[in-house]
Structure formats: C-alpha cells, structure tokens
C-alpha cells in the first residue's frame, strides 16, 4: 500500500508529470498521421531521449508509449487505416461510422473506452504483479502457438458469408509474412534475389497498401468526402455516453487486453482482434458489426490500451518486449541504462509501479486531449476528399519510405495498394490478410520450436489443451450464433425448443 502512494507521489511530481505530458504530445503529433504512428513513430522519436537525465527521459518515454494506441485510433476511424501495433480491429466498425458522418461519436467512444480500459488495466496489473512472473513462465512456445492460432481463428468471424474467401485471404497474408528471411535458418524465401525483400515486406507498407491506398483511390473516383452525409451527425459526447452504457464490455475487453498483453512476444498483434472477435461471438444481435456498430469500436479500443500496460510486465520482468511498441520502449530503457530482467521484481519494483501509473496517467491525458481534438479533426470527413488526397499521398509515401529508406518501399506500396484495391472490389476480406500477415512469423516460429523441442508431445500439455478448448468454444459460438441470424422463423423455432 505504501508503495502505491509512494509511486503516486513520484508520478504526480511536476518534473515527471511535465515530461510525461510532453511525451504524450510528441507521440500524438506524430501518431495521428497514418503510417507514422505506432512503432514507426516511436522509432523516430526515440533518439530524442539520448543525453537526457534518466528520470525525465523515462517519463518522456512512457508518455510516448502510452499514447500510441490512442493516436492510432484517428487514422483507423477516419480512413480505415490500421495502426501498426494497435487499433487495427477498430477499422471494422470505426470507419463505417465515419462514413455515416458519425466519426466524432466513434472517436468519443473509442477514447472513453481507451481511458477506462487503460485505468482498469493498470489496476488489474498492480494487483497481479507479485504473481506475474510465474504466470508468464507458464506460457512457453506451445502455448504461445495456440494463442496465435486463436488469433487466426477469428478470421472466420471476419469473413461473414464467405468463409472460404476469408481463409484464402488469411493464406495470402500468411505467405506474405513468410516472404523474406526464414525465422531460424539462413534461407530467403520468395525474394527473387532482391535485396529489398531479404527482410520481408514491412508491416507499415502492408497496412498502408492494403487499406489506405484503395480507400484514397475509391474516394477520389467517387468524388465525395469520407462521410456520405454532408453534416456531422452525433458528436463526441454521444460517443462517450455509448461507451459508458457498455461499461461491461470495456471491463471485459480490458481484462482480455491486460492478460494477453502480458504474454511476451505476442500480445500486441493479436489483442484487438481477439477482443473484437470475442465481442461478436458473444453477441446475439450482430447484424451491424462491420457496418458501424459502436460496440465494435469500444471492444478493441478498451483492449489495446490495457494491453500496453500488460506489455510492461514481460518488458520489465524479463526484458522481452510484449508488443511491437514495447520493443522500441525496451531500446529506450537500455539507452537510459535501465536493464530490465528478473532482478527488477526485487530491486526496482517501484520503477515498475511508476511505469504502470505513469502509463495510466498519460493514457488519461492522451484520451482527454484526443477527445477535444476529435471535433475539429472529424471536420475533415466532410470536406471534399480532393483537398485531402494529395496530403495523404505525401504522408503515405513518406511514411512508407521510412520503413527501409529505399525505393523498394515505394514500389512495394504501389503493388500492395493495387492488390488491396482488387481485394476490396471483389470481396476479399483484407483484415483477414492483415491478421495472417501479422501472425505468420509467430505461428511458424512457435510451432517450429514446439515440434523441435517436444516432438509431437507438445499437444498434450495442459496449457495447450486448455487453449484448444477455448478456440473450439469460440469458433463454435461463432458458428452457432451465425446460424441463428438468417431468418426470423429460425428464431421462433429456437424459442419453441427452450
């Protein structure tokens, strides 16, 4: 308890607080721009902390990390452009809302959910820390594989009526992810001898290519603004009310966020899809998901802020990043001379608590600021798109180029853009491709390690069986609720049976 108040004292001290806010502002300024958010943004901002004193730099660093999921929400909702490490699933319902003119509502709900989710996550985390180490140690490669598999199983949920297309889209993503260097051997796959492809296609380019480019082209062809309606509908206050109405969803999803977030190496990429998939599978009236159901925004957004808090655990306790942005955060810690690892629970546990609460505080500030920004920024959804298009082209080409600073980036962007456009027109679910791409490496690596190390006995492990069970239930529920949807007569039939 004393630790709690001590930490709070540190966190609220003006010097710490100011740097925290500075970090939030910096992160937000860069992160709002599509393609420059998330990992890219952090990598760009990181050199700033060199040469600063440890305490200020630490606060700055946390501020920047905290605001990544928040800033990523802007491009997700406004244009359906997924962030590089967070706010991916938000595009599913966030963007349709923007198209209906309700962008402010979506953002309001998203930020409220983020705020509450982040705070709740921090609370759960503080309680769990003493037992965190043993829990993380339970999740070895076989269990992590099952978790990645759980992530991929949600592809079905996202494919609506055409599961086979979802499956194939995921396959495209998986193979795209396999392109480049193989995880364990010096083999370069499908690179056609090109140096550029040696490291595979960068995530930023896949995200921007598959989502941003087709959207820009289509909006130009249609010659209208992002929002189909000329005036902005419900405002951010409505969004806040929506979020509060669904507070149980927020609590549920932020719990999922914290727990999945604290599993090393995997959390970041899957969490918002798991939250999104979970909310669909556990709801009866799901017709509106994918068309602007506000719950489809609340669920992933509560999860992704909580996840960043959770991801602090493996980062601090093991020195293993829990998510993409944590990897860069870890680099920042090393720069500051903070070596995370097992010694931390005993020696520097106060640092961990400081981090958790700084994160929560930065979250609050970031979310609050974002809500204020929501109104003016959403005005962009009603201006004629041709005013925005060339700037978007600038930001997107520029952001892509930061991936590997070579022409290959620009070419890859164009190719992925074309692929994404075709997929969009002919009904191939791109989120499935994105999930496949993001999870490809984890799936391959963990399966690989499991088989090498345990032979086929890995499947008999209790953790694996438990997760397999969860996957079966989740897929089962998905199919079950799906079948009830098509006709009212069917529903009546169910009523008669029960």
């Amino acid at each position, binding site marked *: 308890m004393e630790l709690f108040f001590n930490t709070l004292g540190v966190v609220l001290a003006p010097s710490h607080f100011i740097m925290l806010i500075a970090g939030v502002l910096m992160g937000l300024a860069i992160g709002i721009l599509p393609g420059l958010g998330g990992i890219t943004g952090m990598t760009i901002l990181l050199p700033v902390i060199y040469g600063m004193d440890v305490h200020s730099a630490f606060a700055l660093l946390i501020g920047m990390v905290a605001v990544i999921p928040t800033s990523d929400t802007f491009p997700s909702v406004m244009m359906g452009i997924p962030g590089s490490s967070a706010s991916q699933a938000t595009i599913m319902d966030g963007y349709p809302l923007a198209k209906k003119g309700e962008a402010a509502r979506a953002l309001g709900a998203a930020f409220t959910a983020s705020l509450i989710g982040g705070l709740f996550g921090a609370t759960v985390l503080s309680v769990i820390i003493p037992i965190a180490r043993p829990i993380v140690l339970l999740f070895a490669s076989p269990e992590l594989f099952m978790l990645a598999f759980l992530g991929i199983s949600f592809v079905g949920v996202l494919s609506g009526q055409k599961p086979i297309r979802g499956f194939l889209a995921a396959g495209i993503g998986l193979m795209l992810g396999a392109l480049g260097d193989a995880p*364990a051997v010096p083999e370069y796959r499908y690179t056609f001898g090109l140096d550029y492809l*040696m490291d595979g296609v960068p995530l930023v380019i896949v995200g921007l290519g598959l989502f941003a480019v087709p959207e820009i082209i289509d909006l130009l062809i249609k010659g209208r603004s992002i929002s189909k309606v000329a005036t902005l509908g419900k405002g951010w206050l409505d969004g806040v009310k929506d979020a509060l109405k669904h507070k149980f969803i927020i609590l549920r999803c932020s719990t999922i966020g914290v727990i999945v977030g604290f599993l090393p190496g995997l959390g970041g990429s899957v969490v918002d899809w798991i939250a999104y998939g979970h909310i669909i599978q556990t709801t009866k009236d799901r017709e509106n998901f994918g068309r602007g159901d506000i719950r489809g925004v609340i669920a992933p957004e509560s999860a992704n802020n909580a996840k960043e808090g959770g991801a602090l655990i493996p980062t601090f306790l093991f020195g293993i990043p829990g998510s993409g942005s944590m990897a860069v955060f870890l680099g920042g810690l090393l720069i500051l001379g903070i070596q995370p690892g097992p010694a931390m629970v005993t020696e520097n546990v106060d640092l961990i608590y400081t981090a958790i609460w700084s994160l929560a505080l930065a979250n609050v500030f970031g979310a609050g600021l974002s809500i204020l920004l929501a109104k003016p920024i959403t005005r962009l959804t009603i201006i004629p798109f041709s005013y925005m298009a060339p700037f978007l082209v600038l930001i997107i080409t520029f952001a892509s180029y930061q991936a590997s600073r070579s022409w290959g980036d620009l070419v890859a962007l164009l190719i992925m853009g074309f692929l994404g456009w075709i997929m969009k027109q002919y009904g191939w679910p791109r989120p499935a491709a994105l999930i496949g791409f993001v999870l490809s490496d984890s799936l391959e690596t963990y399966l690989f*390690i499991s088989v090498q190390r345990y032979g086929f006995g890995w499947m008999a492990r209790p953790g694996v069986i438990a997760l397999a069970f969860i996957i079966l239930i989740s897929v089962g529920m998905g199919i079950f609720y799906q079948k009830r949807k098509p006709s009212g007569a069917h529903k009546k039939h169910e009523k008669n049976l029960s």
Partner: protein
Amino acid sequence: MKKLQCVLVLLIALAFIAVPNAFSVDFSGKTIEWIIPFDVGGGSDVWARLYAPFLHKYLPGTPIVAIKNMPGGGSIIGGNHFASRAKPDGLTIFGSSGSTTFPYLLDNPRVKYDFAKYPIVFATPVGGMAYIRPEFGVKSVADLKGLKKQLAYASQGATSLDIVPLLAFDILGLNVKAVFGYKGRGPGRVAFEQGEVTIDYQTSPAYIKNVRPLVKQGQAVPLLSWGMIDKDGNMVRDPEEPDLPNLAEAYEIMYGKKPQGPAWNAWKAFFIAGFAVQKAVWLPENTPDEIVAAHSKAAEKTVADPEFQKVAAAELGGYTQLVGPAARKAFNQVLQVPKKDREWLINWLKTKYDVTIK
C-alpha cells in the same frame, strides 16, 4: 654550411610531412556520419550513442557525430552501403558487430564489404558465460564429462552468433540439441527459466544483470565463460567472472589436455570475431593516414576519459576498449584464419545442421 642547414631544414620538414599528423586534420563545422546497420534502441545503437558524445568532444574541430541507422539484411545492407558509398574523407565511419562479421567470414555471397581493406579505429569486446539448469546435478564443468543426457539450447540460427556456443558445446563433447527459432538471447533466457531449454549462455552485461540472481536463487549453475583476449592476443579468463574457466581450461579440466585441431582453430577465430572484438568502428578504404590517426586519437582520449569509463563500466561490461594498433592486432587474428579452418566450419554447418550459406 648554409647548404647543410638547408638540407637539415628540408629533412625536418619532410619528416614532419611524412609522419601522419593528427593535428593537420580539422573537422570543424562538419558532421561525421556514423553508420550503424541496426535498429534504433538495439545493442549496437546504444553502444554507438554512448561513444558519440565523447568522439564529438575529442575529434579535432568538435564535429557533430550523427548516428545513421541502416538496419536490414542482418546488418549486411548497412555494410554494403558503407562499402560502396563511403568516401575516404573521414566523415563517414561504420560500426560493425558480430552479426556483420560472421557472414563475411562465412563467405556469404551477399556481402560486399571487406574488413581487410578498412582501417579499424577502435573495438569493444564483450564476454559470454554459459550456464546449465540445476536438475542435472552438475556443479561445475568437471561434472559435465559424465553427462550423457541430451540438453536443449535456444538458438537464433546456426549462422548467427550461436556458432560460438554451439561449437563450444561440440568441442566439450556435450550432447546438445539446438532448438532454432528464438529471436535472441533474451527469449533464450526466458526459455531457460521456463525449462523449455536446459543450457544457455548470455553476453556479460545480460549475464551480470539477469543470470547472477538466478544463480543466487539456485536456478542456474554457471559452467564456463568463453574467455577474453589480452593485449598480446592470448586467451585468458573473463575478468567479469574470474572464477569461471574459459573454454580452453574447461576442455582441459574435462579431458586432461589442451584443445587443438580445426574445430578449436575455427572456434577461436569466430569467438574473437563475435566477442573479443565484437563491435568495431571502421574508416573507408584508402583513408589517408592523418585522418585515421585523428580518429584513433579521439578514441584514445575517449577511453581515457573517466566519465566515459563510468558509463562503459555500467553498460558495456567494463572491458578494456581496444584502440588503434591493439584493435588491429586483435582483428587480424580473425582475418588471418587459414582458409581450411573456415572451410572446416562451413562444412560442419552443412553436416551437422544442414545449413548452406546462400
């Protein structure tokens, strides 16, 4: 008499010109670009940024020292860029690490850089310590001799820095199964704690911070360190863990004689490349001697600076940094490995791990 004086003056002047004169070099107002073929925040990036402010202070004209990160291809892309684009004007330097040197030694066709042609400015050593899980009843290297059980080691890949531990285990006659796919030594250590793998090594800074507590709690048993190279090029014990035998001593403890043969020669070369001279700074080919001397002098002053020493002790493991001729001498041990020993290693990789360098 006058003629003699003239000749003397001429001779003195010539001597002055001939001796590489660090003081005629001046970088004021310029920017030194330091290419680091790794990501921001990674080990090599941190290393460079520790050095940069001191180099800025001590290079003539106090130029800005700017780090340019060029990750990609496992550091090969940055190396190639340096090889093809850097001009010998002292304004571009290159920071290499073990993962840059290994593909070079293994004749990877993608490598276009050649360390034999570049003047080395300074090098930073690092050590490595191996440890085993306690359940095997092994208390030290001596007990390893009777161990028939198969051990598992978390590896990033057979052509990564892991060549050093894998070959070391082989030399010691241990039955070690390499499990490939781990993303680095960090995950390897976590896997060790989980029991997923049973033998592991860490570089010294990580060992000191993360493994020593485990040893204290009885969850890990230290076995040996790879060792370190002293200024004359001999293998000695690692100063960070002076109680641990180095590989040569460990072998001697187990088998009663000193290790020798192609495996040992290959190991020694790769150990030096991957640890004893792990990170190094280079100037481009044909850089004039005065410029090389200016950079070396700045490095010398850096290493002598007590503030730097504090920082180095905290973050780099406190090893003696090698500058100028000492660095060259150490790295030459790497460059002068006979071709047959390198070929032995390439063959070992092929037969044991079915890995060919493409």
